[in-house]
């Protein structure tokens, strides 16, 4: 008998059920297919303008900094401005995402932009977020050919651009979009919910920013990304 059969057999004996119980199987299949939302907090169920304001407010509460831009064309200047404000060299690493590819980085001749995953030697990384969640000020990033996961964790400063209309009220809206994009029951390899910069409270329960991940998280919300 395989370990699998042994474990499943023990569970069934404890539950006093057999493997071929059709009613139970139907219950499980229905539940998996229904994907019914549970209790969704009212907090995020607002019109887009209020939702966006809530997103920015919640992000600030978890110590993320934010920037609000009308045009994608302004992103390179906003990146340069952020780096200057932190006394960082004018250099950033980004993924190959077409929305980042299209940004007019040539308008910032001082800014060196490199593309691809991080090897741990980058001070700043730039990512595109799949979505934002107003409920908790959370950025949702998905991995893929264009979005290296290492950029979310290795650089000291993580800059994230997100389109204003991609900011949802709740997590449930994000899952509906993930299913529409990747197919039913299919997930990107990695989905990162990022709520503020890295922190630890492990020494005397005092919260300190910058544990292993980025010390700062900068969210740039753009209208027409």
């Amino acid at each position, binding site marked *: 008998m395989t*370990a*699998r059969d*042994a*474990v*499943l057999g*023990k*569970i069934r004996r*404890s*539950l*006093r*059920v057999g*493997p071929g119980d059709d009613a*139970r*199987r139907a*219950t*499980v299949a229905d*539940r*998996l297919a229904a994907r019914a*939302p*549970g*209790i969704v*907090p*009212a*907090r995020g169920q607002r019109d887009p303008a209020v939702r966006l304001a809530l997103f920015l407010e919640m992000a600030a509460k*978890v110590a993320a900094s934010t920037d609000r831009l009308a045009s994608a064309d302004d992103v390179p200047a906003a990146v340069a401005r952020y780096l200057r404000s932190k006394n960082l060299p004018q250099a950033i690493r980004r993924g190959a995402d077409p929305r980042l590819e299209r940004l007019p980085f040539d308008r910032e001749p001082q800014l060196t932009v490199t593309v691809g995953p991080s090897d741990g030697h980058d001070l700043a990384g730039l990512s595109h977020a799949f979505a934002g969640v107003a409920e*908790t000020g*959370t950025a949702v990033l998905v*991995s*893929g*050919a264009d979005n290296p*996961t*290492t950029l979310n*964790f290795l650089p000291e400063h993580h800059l994230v651009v997100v389109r204003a209309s991609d900011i949802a009220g709740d*997590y449930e809206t994000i*899952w509906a979009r*993930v299913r529409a994009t990747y197919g039913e*029951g299919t*997930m*990107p*390899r*990695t*989905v*990162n*919910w*990022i*709520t503020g910069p*890295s*922190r*630890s*409270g*492990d020494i*005397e*329960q*005092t919260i*300190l920013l*910058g*544990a*292993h*991940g*980025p010390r700062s998280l900068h969210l740039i919300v753009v209208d027409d990304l």
Partner: protein
Amino acid sequence: MQVTSPAFKENAAKALADVTLQKALKNVETGFIAKRAAAAAALPEFEALRDAARDLKNHVLAHLDLYLEAYEKKVVAAGGHVHWAESAEDARRIVTDICKRLGARTVTKGKSMITEEIALNDHLEREGLIPVETDLGEYIIQLRGEHPSHIVAPAVHLTKEQVAGDFRRVHTHLDAARDLTEPVTLLSEARAVLREKFLVADVGITGANFLIAETGTSIIVTNEGNGDLTQTLPKAHIVMASIEKIVPTLEDVDTLLRVLARSATGQEMSVYTTFSTGPRREGDPDGPGEYHVVLLDNGRSAMLGTEFEEMLRCIRCGACMNHCPVFQAVGGHAYGWVYPGPMGAVLTPTLIGVDKAGHLPNASTFCGRCESVCPMRIPLPKMMRAWRNREWERALNPATLRSGLGLWAFVAARPGLYRLAARVSSMALRLLGRGRGRIASLPFFAAGWTKMRDMPAPEGATFMDQWKARAGR
């Protein structure tokens, strides 16, 4: 790890006398309780979410076999591997086999309580591998050769001075005269030291807060980002999960995530909630080449259908221990094994036997705070009482306790005798009180009771006598 649960009383006495520990334990109250209360109050739906979370997990447990089958299918479809482990030994062997096949040397680890449960680190070291804990708290206690004293805050029993001492002792490549008085300096030092380990690790092992049947996804929740570096950088990611971690759908996990961080640390959401499905895909610029899930039973299947089944709803937030007066007084190490506090008092006897862990369900005042804050509404006091019953049935209590309670039961079952005994002892106690209204020291077996406090002397006749005198009015 060595089990010291049978010595709970001695452990607790030692903990109470440990000045440094008592200082550190003060942080439990300031660090957790008010924050949880504020987070719960800030979300009007919080109590309803707790009900929903409880019902959801009850549904999963009643169909656990089928959800595990569905989950396995999806993991395999995403290119991952599922390994079933009946026991701790099986799980350890599965992990070592993967590491050996990959020629691994350094193994980084995200925080995982079940790797503590199966004593994985000791085993990996015996097999010539170098396990490196990367959660700051876990790293600190690994340096000290200790075990976590709290399931969420493993180093809560330590002060910053102790941590500074350990860093000086171990990080000998750094300037010995450096200033380590501030926690932020300690954090930066750990970040730099561990960054090197992340970059050279061959295998990364994480736990799993949840597994999703709908998609074959494992989830980790951290604040530091250590779990993400652990699982993203090496050749292989091994997820260690116990069988009850399963959740049907993405929507279901939202419900649990909405109560988890609020109950654990009082955060609205942890910093990093990461959903992982399978290994690196074609075209991916990074990510692990292999993705393995080890599904551990280790006694859990036997809890189903028993009075301890509800314990399997636990999502390991630590709220019960944060709010427990016994935990606050003695800390986690006194409990003598992996899981401390009220959840440990229920779980430990099921996993290592009530003969070894019988003291733990007795180390409770039944004040009920644990149940009142449990996001999954687990009736912890009821289950501790159930363990006390089992302990009694199996005659595991000390002979003096058993004969004392036997004598009391004999008298209590005979009303005439009981009233006589009450009258006699009430008179005797009044005599001992000698008009002062209190007794400074009781004789014989009761001497221990008055060692720390006075016993109030009875003021008049027994209740039954007074009742009779008032003719029932």
